[in-house]
């Protein structure tokens, strides 16, 4: 059973946002890891891939777009991990930039916990 649990890496610099997502994801049966920025996320992924990334855009040290670009140039399976971007940036060019960097889906914050779970489940191939 435990092997069925999907592992999600939440990449966001705001601690309460990470906690907010963590609680929603754990309630829905996901395992959650956290990173404060893109650099830290890359470091965590060196230890092993996850089933889904939830990625903020504006972060210090390495933003979400740079992180996704870097990740998509890595070898498989890292390069193919699905990524859900959640950001307060809501303009068309922000969506385009994230898509071009390798985001699979883009949600503008605030994202309700229900919506987060809906899209997380879809993106890790676990439709509900």
């Amino acid at each position, binding site marked *: 059973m435990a092997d069925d649990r999907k592992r999600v890496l939440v990449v966001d*610099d705001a*601690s*309460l*946002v990470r*906690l*907010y*997502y963590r*609680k929603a994801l754990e309630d829905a049966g996901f395992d959650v890891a956290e990173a404060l920025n893109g650099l830290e996320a890359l470091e965590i992924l060196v230890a092993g891939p996850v089933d889904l990334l939830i990625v903020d855009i504006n972060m210090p040290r390495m933003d979400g777009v740079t992180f996704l670009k870097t990740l998509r140039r890595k070898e498989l399976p890292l390069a193919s991990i699905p990524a859900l971007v959640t950001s307060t*940036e809501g303009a068309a060019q922000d969506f385009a930039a994230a898509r071009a960097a390798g985001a699979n889906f883009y949600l503008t914050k*605030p994202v309700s916990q229900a919506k987060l779970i809906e899209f997380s489940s879809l993106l890790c191939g676990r439709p509900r």
Partner: protein
Amino acid sequence: MVFNEGKRYFVDRRVIDRMSATGSATFASYFARLRGDLQNEVEQFINAFTINETYFYREDQQLRCLTSDLLDERVRSKKRGQPIRIWSAPCSTGEEPFSIAIWILENWRQADAHDIEIVGSDIDTKVLEAAREGIFGKRALMRLTPVLIEKYFVAIDPERWRIVQSLRESILLTSVNLVEASQTRAHGKFDVIFCRNVLIYFDDASRRMAAENLYENLEPGGYICLGHTESMSRISPLFEVCRFADAIVYRKPLSDGHG
């Protein structure tokens, strides 16, 4: 319960309250009543000391006001990416700042759309140590539902729970003396300050000084929440009183026209 010298005023205040409640003219006559446990005075006396122990979700109408009005109001004047800063001072053993965090996570629809910084400060470094430990007993959790306890705490034995690590790490805990401007200023500006049930224990001069310091710690248009029996209007003319559906709070005027 241990009360050190720093709690003298706290103790005095409660003994005087009990003396007046029982119509005792002198301490000697009150003490005789207490020793004889007349009309359950021992229990009343103990209650007078414990009733002010803090607990999670205390005065939750102010927390409701925070998420239904104050934060939305503050967000409107923010540039994207600017954090929202909330100060719990004094924070005692952490119940208040942790309550604020849990309340926001549970009740504010924009919880993930802003970087929220919560700072808890107290003059007493021992209570800050306890807050950092984040271990609470049944009494502190009495207002939380089992679902919330399950979600944000880890049981360490049948009587005690520890707040989850990520929540402990989300709150910055610092020491501060509210009447020392150099210390309060170092904390920067806040959008909302919770300063509940402490100014009543200050004398008039320190109360005014603390109010002026807190004023300086607020962003223009920022809010301060006092205990429900306290009134800022009696302490300082600097603030505007604001009535919201759930609570009365005070605001630093937008135009910074000192008084």
